[in-house]
């Protein structure tokens, strides 16, 4: 999937993945897509919850060798 921006948040713990994701998505326009990489397993529930609260949409997610990837479309 093509992303407009990629954010490497690997190695960071709560609440940093969410905080960095927010900062990154602020730089995008509505409809654009952010690709997030994180190793925080809490992000599995945190990122979808955050997206719902903040009005964005997780359109895809995957896991690869302990790295969780999310594609988030800015609302």
């Amino acid at each position, binding site marked *: 999937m093509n992303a407009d921006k990629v954010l490497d948040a690997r*190695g*960071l*713990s*709560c*609440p*940093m993945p*969410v*905080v960095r*994701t*927010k900062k990154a998505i602020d730089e995008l326009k509505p409809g654009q897509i952010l690709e997030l990489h994180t190793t925080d397993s809490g992000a599995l529930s*945190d990122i979808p919850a*955050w997206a719902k*609260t*903040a*009005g964005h949409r997780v359109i895809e997610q995957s896991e690869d060798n302990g790295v969780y990837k999310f594609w988030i479309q800015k609302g």
Partner: protein
Amino acid sequence: MSRKVAIIASNGGLFDAYKVFNIATAAAAADAEVAIFFTFEGLNLIHKDAHQQLPVPTGREHYMEGFKKANVPSIPELLQMAQEMNVKLIACQMTMDVMSLKKEDFVDGVDVGGAATFLHFAQDADVTLTF
């Protein structure tokens, strides 16, 4: 429409600081308007010097290794982040008087107010938390 999160911080240990600032920054990251009212020992969390070396509960010193291993951000980092995300920090005037603290004793950008100031903010808050 922006949601409001109102937090009271009334304890001054390291773990208390994490509870307060993690929730506050996460809420701010979700575009909520956040205010924290610091009262009694909670004032430590925004004190210029104290917030850099908050006490760890006795018998829990071994947690510090876990903090390092999990790469948890420091309290000064979290506090700075909260301020960058416009979290409103309100120091309790009455406690400041009792402890002979001045506005200058706190990190820059702190507001000073009383119970009514916090209640005014919290009146229509969607989430209210006490730590």
